[in-house]
């Protein structure tokens, strides 16, 4: 039992146990696409609302994005482990989705979505809260950096001019939704590639 080969094999087993436990705890679903989807949705809604002057731009875009997200989530739902971390993170994003959907649908339909600064500040603060909570649960520094960007955008929206507020919001969307979403998807794909088969 104590010869070199056996020792090496036993060490391999210990490292197999460690890697499998870590694998189980890792969030296996790639949600990068949802960040990109919502980033694009915000851009579309802003463009539609600015050039189309339509009060329904935000509610309709948000509604479509919600439907696409729900369909995507249902398609992915059949292949996952249940973990406390996963449920906690999921709860944060589901609560964010419901809050944003109800708030902006109601604001859009009531015609009270008129203050651009307040609008950008509220969206940024809510997204900062969700990213911050998720980052603290997952101990994910990159996502915490996104939360900081959103919080900064929320504050900047209150003090800057219209143009400054819009630019800050557009930059935050690009960094924290599109760039972060692509980064998440690439990281997940690389992780999948690294896995090796285990046989009995």
């Amino acid at each position: 039992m104590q010869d070199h080969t056996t020792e090496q094999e036993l060490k391999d087993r210990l490292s197999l146990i460690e890697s499998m436990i870590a694998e189980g705890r890792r969030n296996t679903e790639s949600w990068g696409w949802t960040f990109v989807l919502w980033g694009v949705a915000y851009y579309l809604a802003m463009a539609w609302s600015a050039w189309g002057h339509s009060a329904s731009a935000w509610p309709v875009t948000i509604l479509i994005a919600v439907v696409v997200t729900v369909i995507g989530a249902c398609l992915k739902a059949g292949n996952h482990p249940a973990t406390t971390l996963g449920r906690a993170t999921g709860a944060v994003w589901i609560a964010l989705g419901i809050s944003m959907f109800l708030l902006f649908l109601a604001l859009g339909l009531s015609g009270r979505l008129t203050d651009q600064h307040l609008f950008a500040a509220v969206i940024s603060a809510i997204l900062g809260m969700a990213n911050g909570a998720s980052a603290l649960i997952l101990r994910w520094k990159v996502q915490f950096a996104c939360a900081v960007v959103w919080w900064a955008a929320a504050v900047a929206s209150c003090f800057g001019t219209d143009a400054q507020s819009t630019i800050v919001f557009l930059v935050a969307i690009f960094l924290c939704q599109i760039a972060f979403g692509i980064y998440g998807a690439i990281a997940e794909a690389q992780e999948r590639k690294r896995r090796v088969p285990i046989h009995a």
Partner: protein
Amino acid sequence: MPELPELNPVVHGRLRLALLSLLSGVEEAEFTWLRAKTEATDGNLGAQLLKLEEAGYVGVEKKFVLRKPQTVYRITEAGRRALIEYVQALNQLLGPAMDAESALHKERS
């Protein structure tokens, strides 16, 4: 010479060890997820899970979700205990080797 601990043969199988370790980190997992993580074949995975189930180390639940059959596995208390004892036995077996290795590293540095 001190008596060396026995390694539990049910846990010792490489795939069974991977399965128990995976299940120890989650509340429950589907067959498809376990297959993706271990990259084992359906037959091999099913056979190893059955051995773990027969030993009382994993519990299995078969259900229908949106009319699709779904098999969910979770580690039992006995399974968790067996895995912990297995890790303790491994550490005990490797103890002298690891001590010698770290002493060698210290000597070299």
